């Protein structure tokens, strides 16, 4: 269907024609069914879904702002937070479990992993999307296929390898395996394929730029939007990762999830304290979410269409 655009109609047939054309087109969409404004039932159900998403977090805050005795005596917490949130946060940072170190470790791992994934994935994605070399097709298929390999099952040998490298208990043991991912490569290939015009690359090459310079000054800047999203997702995945860090880092150099596990197994099980720990582990990502939630949504939706 190649109907003239509304601005075109406006130009040629005048404002009122454009208005009616706009209405007409909307009308067509309405007849399609799913573009009608939904009724209150939809809002109600979605509202309940959101309540379900938020409630466990709110519950956490309620307990984290209370104290062990109050919690023990009231299985259903009072819906208004108590006043001890700050005290509990201070207490959990002063507790035997070194949450400062854990927070720092988490930040180091997440930042290093994200930076590395973005760099190497963009590099590979650029190569797959824009350079021609023998075996490109099959290799790309191979990359995609590896996404289905449950690498987590390799923990036993991976542990042995890390042990041989002397990296057990070292943050490198967690950073190293996640330095570049199949998903990242695939994602950047997809993006650069459509977003980076050949003309730019050619121009750089004609100017005598080396291959890497071309990548650095042309492809990398062009990849920025997709790279930001990739960084975001990698950061979240790294921040929430538990299985491998709990095995290889143990409790000597814990990341936040590992520290949370320690809090739970506490000598006195102080629920208010545990929940304060949860709050601490969750806040950074909630902040990221508030700032970049829109991008996250867009990222998931783009990934879905293409993947």
């Amino acid at each position, binding site marked *: 269907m190649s109907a003239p655009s509304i601005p075109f109609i406006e130009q040629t047939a005048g404002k009122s024609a454009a208005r009616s054309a706009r209405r007409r087109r909307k009308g067509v969409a309405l007849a*399609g069914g*799913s573009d*009608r*404004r*939904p009724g209150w039932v939809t809002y109600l*159900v*979605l509202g309940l879904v*959101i309540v379900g*998403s938020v409630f*466990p*977090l709110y*519950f956490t805050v309620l307990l984290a702002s209370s104290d062990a005795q109050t919690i023990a005596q009231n*299985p*259903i917490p009072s819906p208004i937070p108590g006043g001890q949130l700050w005290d509990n946060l201070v207490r959990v940072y002063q507790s035997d479990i070194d949450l400062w170190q854990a927070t720092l470790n988490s930040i180091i791992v997440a930042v290093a992993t994200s930076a590395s994934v973005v760099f190497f994935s963009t*590099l*590979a994605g650029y*190569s797959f999307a824009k*350079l*021609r*070399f023998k075996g*490109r097709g099959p*290799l790309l298929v191979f*990359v995609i296929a*590896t996404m*289905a*390999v*449950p690498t*987590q*099952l*390799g*923990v*036993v*040998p*991976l542990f*042995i*390898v890390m042990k041989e490298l002397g990296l057990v208990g070292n943050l490198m043991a967690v950073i190293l*395996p996640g330095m570049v991912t*199949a998903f990242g490569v695939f994602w950047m290939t997809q993006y650069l394929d459509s977003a980076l*015009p050949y003309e730019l690359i050619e121009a750089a*090459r*004609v100017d005598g730029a080396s291959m*890497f310079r071309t990548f650095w000054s042309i492809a990398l800047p062009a990849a920025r939007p997709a790279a930001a999203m990739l960084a975001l997702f990698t950061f*979240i995945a790294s921040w*929430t990762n*538990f*299985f491998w860090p*709990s095995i290889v880092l143990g409790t000597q150099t814990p990341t*936040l*999830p590992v520290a*949370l*596990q320690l809090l739970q197994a506490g000598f006195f099980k102080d629920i208010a304290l*545990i929940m304060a720990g*949860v709050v601490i*582990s*969750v806040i950074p990502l909630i902040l990221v*979410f508030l700032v970049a*939630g829109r991008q996250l*949504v867009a990222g998931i*939706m783009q990934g*879905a269409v293409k993947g």
Partner: protein
Amino acid sequence: MATQLAPTRGAAPSRQRPPRKIGFRQTLGRWDVKVSPYLYISPFFILFAIVGLFPLLYTGYVSVHEWSLLGGKGDYVGFENFSFVLGQPNFWTGLRNTLSIFLLSSVPQVIAALIIAAMLDANLRAKTFWRMGVLLPYVVAPVAVALVFSKMFADESGMINAVLGNLGIDPIGWHKDVLPSHIAIASMVNFRWTGYNALIFLAAMQAIPRDLYEAATLDGASRVRQFFAITIPMLRPTMIFVIITSTIGGLQIYDEPRMYDQLGQGGNSRQWMTITLYLYELGWRQRDLGRAAAVAWLLFLLIIIFAILNFAITRRISSADDMTRTAKKARKAIKARERSAR
């Protein structure tokens, strides 16, 4: 030089180039051009070989040896580790739990995600708010989710049983009993991933050509019928994608059951011990990496079987026939309408 670049689609007819003079710089340049593409993709392949492929294969090697966590490699024992593991009631309990938790998390999750996606697909006010709202749990670490939920699901001191008690319902043994513990753990998984998957479905729904619905509406199909006749079949590839990824993740579930109580052994009757939990127990508590590796291989096998099974089932559920028939019908209707309009 531009020859090394894949030509822009449908453009760039071959150009005549002046004959080249080969100098050192150019040799270097040609080498650069030839090798760079491989150099750029090599980090992925090298890393995958080291931390993905090699460990997986090496798992096989470890699994046929006696291999203690502390003492290291021992004798070759053939399939002894496998037969030991397969002879353990705990392995089968773990298998049962893993499958049960997997089903309880993936089936309701996919259904809920589809419904939520359909609602998000409507012409909502404040679209971004709703989309972000359903995605919120995704940023909460599974460990944190598990801590919060295990408190809510505590058998005697938990909120959920207290609420049920107020409604006159007997307390449920969320930790004591098999199925309730699975439901509790599945609810953690669902909490975190339903919104995420809903967004994936939403994206796929938005890619469905609107004229299909238009035609169906003209044919008098209700919205529910449209959902089943058009939306679901058109989402087939996405559903396969979502289900397979959730299978790979779901069968390896560890964080949530590990954190469901303070001991992390999956309960007194191992009522919620999953296979990965069992793997950890064998390897790092009983310190037998050989047996742990055997479990890893068995789990790997299981995942492959399930991936294939899922693929087949998903194909059948939203069968290709159904989709093409509906789609064809709809397309025909549109064409007919266009023709008559002309």
